[in-house]
């Protein structure tokens, strides 16, 4: 009787169930009726801000925005390699007209670029200006407004509704012209105009959403594709709007062609628009995702393939591998003993077994040994060209490390092994997941051989970041961190990681975890609650400012390379150990694979599947 009652209840629940989604197994490649569908699955839609382009700062969605959904003034070619870092006009008809003093940028919009349904009207300069107004509205929680605040005259994040904000530095004299007045020359300004948050937004839709992330389920296309179901969005009033059906934040995202898109307004070099439909689904079973890729039920996944799939596919066409401009590093706090001594920091650079760390992470498939900070893809030299702490086979060298340690104040007898109490029980912050769980014994052993007794504390990734980024925790060394660019310019590495302006109080805010440039005065002024040795900490602000003021054709790249050398040899905040690579397992249905070097993800703009 219990079984019968239970069964009846279950049937009632099933009949009452809504479309729960979850993926019933969509075939990759061709869908019904000759439609080309790119089918993907991922373990989770990681979002910081509900897919709202004003505030979302997750790289995968940045790719989706700039490849297929939105057209900022400037954009990339969405291809691999150096060509992927070149910038082109997208919504803009041409490159901006820049005044002689570098303070005024004038963009002219292309004719005929349309918002998709349900707005279905031509994009104007006011729509671009509105995107900046949204960033300036504090309630929208724009996560990279700092790239424009203080750069564009009068753009200040404030507690006002977007449409009530007047940004004096943005002029829209007519529907086709937008003029930016800058507070100071900003040579990488064109790159900042390629970020998704700067893409035009229709205020008649977005202004209904006053808080961060709310617009994410109502995003109106300005590009060649749109969220499926956009045409059903009722924009009669704010109250009539219901979330677009093609995006269920916990389950699925379907993107189809925008019927209002005119290819004549676009450049095939930026978008090939081969595919008719993109379907991304959540699948909590990672092995199942890749089994389906192998079986042809899915085309690919942005997730990292498990080791067994990598092993089977390595060396085949089904495993394209691309360098992404991401650095993984061990950060040493310049104020905390024993790392307040440069000889100790250099000794650590010489002892760490980078080859061992790479093998623990999965070998050459996952990346290459990093010998300095700036990845080669961003203009930095290759390991062969520059390795200031070269050791045989990148395995670390005990003799070299000891020779360096012997010069340190913490090695009283000069035997190359730290014997000071400051080298005992040194907290090493790391993560509690692979590959860090494989790294930690290697690092403990390496550090131990030069007398630094590391006590590893493994934390969940986000917790580890927040712990080390909270200045008051005074963590001496952390192995958990990595960093990627926001656009292909070295400034997006060095500014956040090494300038004194980046050192801020509060939990999880500070990315300059080595505290380069800190002074006792800054510590007091910003209430950082730092302990340790704050005197004489190296500062690279002047060099950063010098390089930041240079244009690309004025030696900017070379200048930042000099800064890299300065950091590696005279500051030594890090042990860089890996420049990342992305390996994607793809099905046989994918006929054209392309990689978006800027986004560091697959390139929806150019991929193709079998028809």
């Amino acid at each position: 009787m219990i079984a019968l009652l239970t069964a009846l209840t279950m049937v009632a629940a099933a009949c009452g169930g809504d479309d729960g989604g979850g993926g019933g197994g969509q075939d990759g490649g061709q869908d019904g009726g000759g439609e080309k569908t790119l089918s993907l699955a991922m373990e989770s839609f990681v979002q910081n801000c509900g897919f709202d382009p004003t505030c979302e700062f997750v790289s995968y969605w940045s790719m989706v925005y700039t490849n297929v959904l939105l057209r900022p003034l400037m954009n990339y070619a969405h291809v691999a390699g150096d060509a992927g870092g070149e910038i082109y006009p997208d919504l803009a008809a041409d490159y901006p007209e820049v005044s002689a003093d570098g303070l005024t940028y004038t963009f002219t919009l292309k004719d005929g670029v349309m918002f998709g349904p349900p707005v279905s009207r031509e994009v104007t300069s006011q729509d671009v200006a509105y995107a900046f107004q949204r960033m300036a509205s504090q309630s929208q929680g724009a996560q990279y407004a700092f790239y424009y605040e203080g750069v564009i005259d009068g753009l200040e994040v404030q507690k006002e509704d977007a449409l009530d904000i007047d940004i004096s530095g943005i002029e829209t004299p007519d529907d086709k012209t937008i003029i930016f007045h800058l507070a100071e020359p900003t040579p990488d300004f064109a790159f900042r105009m390629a970020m998704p948050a700067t893409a035009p937004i229709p205020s008649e839709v977005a202004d209904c959403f006053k808080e961060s992330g709310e617009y994410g389920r109502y995003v109106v296309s300005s590009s060649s594709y749109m969220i499926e179901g956009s045409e059903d969005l009722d924009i009669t009033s704010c109250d009539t709007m219901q979330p677009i059906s093609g995006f269920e934040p916990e389950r699925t995202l379907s993107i189809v062609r925008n019927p209002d898109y005119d290819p004549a307004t676009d450049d095939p070099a930026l978008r090939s628009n081969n595919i008719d439909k993109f379907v991304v689904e959540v699948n909590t079973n990672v092995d199942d995702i890749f089994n389906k890729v192998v079986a042809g039920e899915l085309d690919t996944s942005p997730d990292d393939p498990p080791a067994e799939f990598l092993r089977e596919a390595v060396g085949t066409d089904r495993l394209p591998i691309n360098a992404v401009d991401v650095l993984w590093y061990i950060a040493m706090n310049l104020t905390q003993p024993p790392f307040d001594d440069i000889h100790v920091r250099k000794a650590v650079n010489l002892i760490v077994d980078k080859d061992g760390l790479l093998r623990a992470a999965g070998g050459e498939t996952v990346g290459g040994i990093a010998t300095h900070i700036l990845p080669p893809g961003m203009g930095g030299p290759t390991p062969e060209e520059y390795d200031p702490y070269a050791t045989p086979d990148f395995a670390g060298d005990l003799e070299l490390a000891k020779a360096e340690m012997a010069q340190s104040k913490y090695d009283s007898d000069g035997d190359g092994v730290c014997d000071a109490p400051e080298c005992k029980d040194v907290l090493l912050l790391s993560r509690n997941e692979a590959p860090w769980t494989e790294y930690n014994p290697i690092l403990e052993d390496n550090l131990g051989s030069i007398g630094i007794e590391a006590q590893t504390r493994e934390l969940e990734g986000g917790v580890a970041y927040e712990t080390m980024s909270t200045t008051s925790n005074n963590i001496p060394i952390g192995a958990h961190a990595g960093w990627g660019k926001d656009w292909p310019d070295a400034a997006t590495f060095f500014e956040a990681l090494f300038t004194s302006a980046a050192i801020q109080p509060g939990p999880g805010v500070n990315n300059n975890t080595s505290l380069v440039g800190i002074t006792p005065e800054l510590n007091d002024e910003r209430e950082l609650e730092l302990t340790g040795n704050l005197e004489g900490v190296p500062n690279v602000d002047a060099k950063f400012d010098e390089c930041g003021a240079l244009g690309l054709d004025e030696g900017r790249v070379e200048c930042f390379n000099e800064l890299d050398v300065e950091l590696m040899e005279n500051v030594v905040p890090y042990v860089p150990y890996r420049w990342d690579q992305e390996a994607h397992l793809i099905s046989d249905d994918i006929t054209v694979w392309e990689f978006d070097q800027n986004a560091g993800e697959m390139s929806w703009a150019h991929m193709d599947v079998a028809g």
Partner: protein
Amino acid sequence: MTRYIIRRLLWVGLVVVLIVFLAYVIFFLMPPVDPARAFAGKRPTPEVLETLREQFGLDRPFYVQFGLFVKRLVIGDEYGWPGFGFSYATRSPVREELFQRALVTIQLSLGAAVVWLLMGIPIGILSAIKRRTFVDRFAMGFALFGVSAPVFWLGLMFLYIFWQKLGIAAGTGYVPFGENPLTWLNHMIMPWVVLALLFAAFYARMVRGNLIETMGEDYIRTARAKGLSERRVIVRHGLRASLTPVVTMFGLDVGTLLGGAIITETVFNMPGLGTYVVRSVFQGDLPATLGVVVLGALAVSVMNLIVDIVYAYLDPRVRYA
């Protein structure tokens, strides 16, 4: 009995509030990360953090936050009743997601419950009747396997054998019943069986043990002496007494599962409460986590009540004031 039920329902409410309070203390007072920081991007500014704390309601004292949470739960919020707020990650109402997923979890849990009852009880009865025979040993071997095999391993093996190699079962995922009943069933069978195996094994052992003990009672001997058939003796007299612990366990097990069969849902990619709570815990999405806690606590408490009521029906000696 009515007064008893009413009293118990009031206790259910109190228990849920207490559990939610504890969960609130754990997740809000002792979070591993600042919830606002987790959703503020890689270079959070003080303004972004301030905005998120305000929008997430984290800028108020803990007791105010808890009070507002309970209030919204009882009277609803802008998204409906009961009010669970919005997800920090998706900025969408938690309520609609919770209910959609609860339905999937109910289907999974109850379906598995039917399977484990249909497997476990007959196997337990057969094993008790055929004690010390090959049937008994085989049945208990099965029980040992069911208890020992980890659910995640079973799920992966099932997928490997029946989907990947033999191609006779649907793979992972969920298809709503309304969309295609047959496909729905095809996708549910493996998760049901995998989830049911562990419980079927327990129940088989429990029924076997209880029935063996019951069949040794004096009243069973009397029933046989009266000339009743062995089948009648077992079913009408033996089983009824030996199933009361099964009822208790059943209620608790189903109640617990209704809070989310995390491993099974994850392995079979089912959009239930289990996968939802895993995602939300890892991302620090507190409203979503609390929503599942509330539903889970409610499910266990209500199932406990139902068990007690059924217990009174099964055992006439039990009467509630």
